[in-house]
């Protein structure tokens, strides 16, 4: 890419192409109308310039047909903008089912990403070419926004909840990652790179480098460490619900309502268990607020998700060097409790 002068950002995903088509339409409409108005103003201003101080122009009275035309025509053009824009937006909002999942945690002022296979990165994200990537994102502190101009993807990352974004890279290369929501002093330093790699190269990257155990098995360790397993046992039913296969199902609550067991629900169940209690159980689960970090939560969620699947979670086969420690900042709500040897 020629860094000095470009007019279009890199187009590195199918969505980017779709969006640029929409942009073209918008630009054409804008060009037509601004040219029309500028031309008319210039034309009238010159043709009807005042020639003498006493001139009295004839009155032209309003014309209803004109009013209707210039109300309806722009309106129709705008409705095209709306539907087209909405359909692109819909595409941006619906990750395909086969997307690979990557977790993102934003904090002042860095991006932490975790692959299911266990790789963790800071301010970087490596992804394979041609495979849709779904990001499940949350923040440890304030609102950030995960922005990759080359894919035309941006979505806010909020504390206390999960948000989703996705993209399908179609061109290998190194692309900007920006934080696009103002988040404090080093907002402009909360940037990084997305590396789109050929699939084989990506496999090599996964295997080498900073491979560890898979996210789910880290989650399992946490599950043991935090003694969740003492109550939530898979062998015998008891005072606590069996978490096997619970993810994605509809859970009945004591209030009679049902909720879908999604990421947000699992997160709430761990941090604020008394908010929604599963029908048939007592409110005895302690809150783990302050004891688990956002990343720990994501690992626990991934573990609980993996419980639904038949076999144990696949994982990066080669346990390589350990990833760099992630929980550096004092702002983190709690220490990570991942047992030491895994870090």
């Amino acid at each position, binding site marked *: 890419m020629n860094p000095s002068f470009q007019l279009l950002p890199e187009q590195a995903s199918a969505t980017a192409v779709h969006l640029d088509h929409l942009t073209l339409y918008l630009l054409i409409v804008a060009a037509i109308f601004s040219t029309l108005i500028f031309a008319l103003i210039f034309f009238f201003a010159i043709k009807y310039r005042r020639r003498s101080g006493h001139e009295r122009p004839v009155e032209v009275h309003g014309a209803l047909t004109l009013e209707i035309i210039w109300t309806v025509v722009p309106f129709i053009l705008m409705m095209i903008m709306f539907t087209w824009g909405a359909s692109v937006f819909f595409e941006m*909002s*619906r*990750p395909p089912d086969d997307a690979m999942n990557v977790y993102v945690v934003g904090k002042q002022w860095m991006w932490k990403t975790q692959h299911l296979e266990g790789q963790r990165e800071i301010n970087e994200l490596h992804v394979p070419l041609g495979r849709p990537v779904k990001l*499940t*994102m949350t923040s440890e502190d304030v609102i950030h926004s995960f922005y990759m101009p080359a894919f035309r993807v941006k*979505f806010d990352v*909020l504390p206390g*909840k*999960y*948000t*989703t974004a996705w993209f399908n890279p179609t061109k290998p290369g190194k692309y900007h990652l920006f934080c696009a929501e103002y988040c404090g002093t080093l907002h402009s330093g909360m940037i990084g790179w997305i590396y789109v790699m050929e699939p084989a190269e990506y496999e090599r990257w996964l295997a080498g480098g900073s491979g560890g155990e898979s996210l789910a098995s880290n989650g399992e360790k946490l599950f043991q460490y935090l003694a969740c397993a003492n109550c939530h046992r898979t062998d015998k039913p008891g005072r606590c619900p069996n978490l096997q296969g619970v993810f994605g199902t509809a859970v009945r609550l004591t209030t009679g309502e049902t909720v*879908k067991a*999604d*990421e*947000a629900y699992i997160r709430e169940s761990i941090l604020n268990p008394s908010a929604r209690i599963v029908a048939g159980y007592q409110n005895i689960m302690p809150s783990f607020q302050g004891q688990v970090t956002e990343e720990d939560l994501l690992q626990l969620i991934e573990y609980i998700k993996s419980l639904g699947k038949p076999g144990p979670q696949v994982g990066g086969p080669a346990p390589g060097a350990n990833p760099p420690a992630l929980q550096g900042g004092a702002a983190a709500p709690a220490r990570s409790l991942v047992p030491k040897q895994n870090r």
Partner: protein
Amino acid sequence: MAEHIVTKKQYSYVFGILMALTFATTAIGMIDLGRLNVVVALVIAVIKALLVMLFFMHLYWSSKLNKLVIVSGAAWLALLLWLTLTDFFSRGWLPFPGK
């Protein structure tokens, strides 16, 4: 706008109704009616509010303009609630976190 003086007697009728409604809403509030609790409490509150506005605040005898003003205040509040709740009620319609 012709001046209209409301008598103390008229005020005391309204006052009586208001007190009765306060008692009623409190009493009903103690019984579990399920979802109806909300409905009943809000209906009574709206009736009370109307009574205060129409009679204590003389809206009943006021110009159309003043009525329009207060109606638009209520309408704008409704607007704020309506469009905000549009968001909260439609969250999760797409099966992805944060959509």
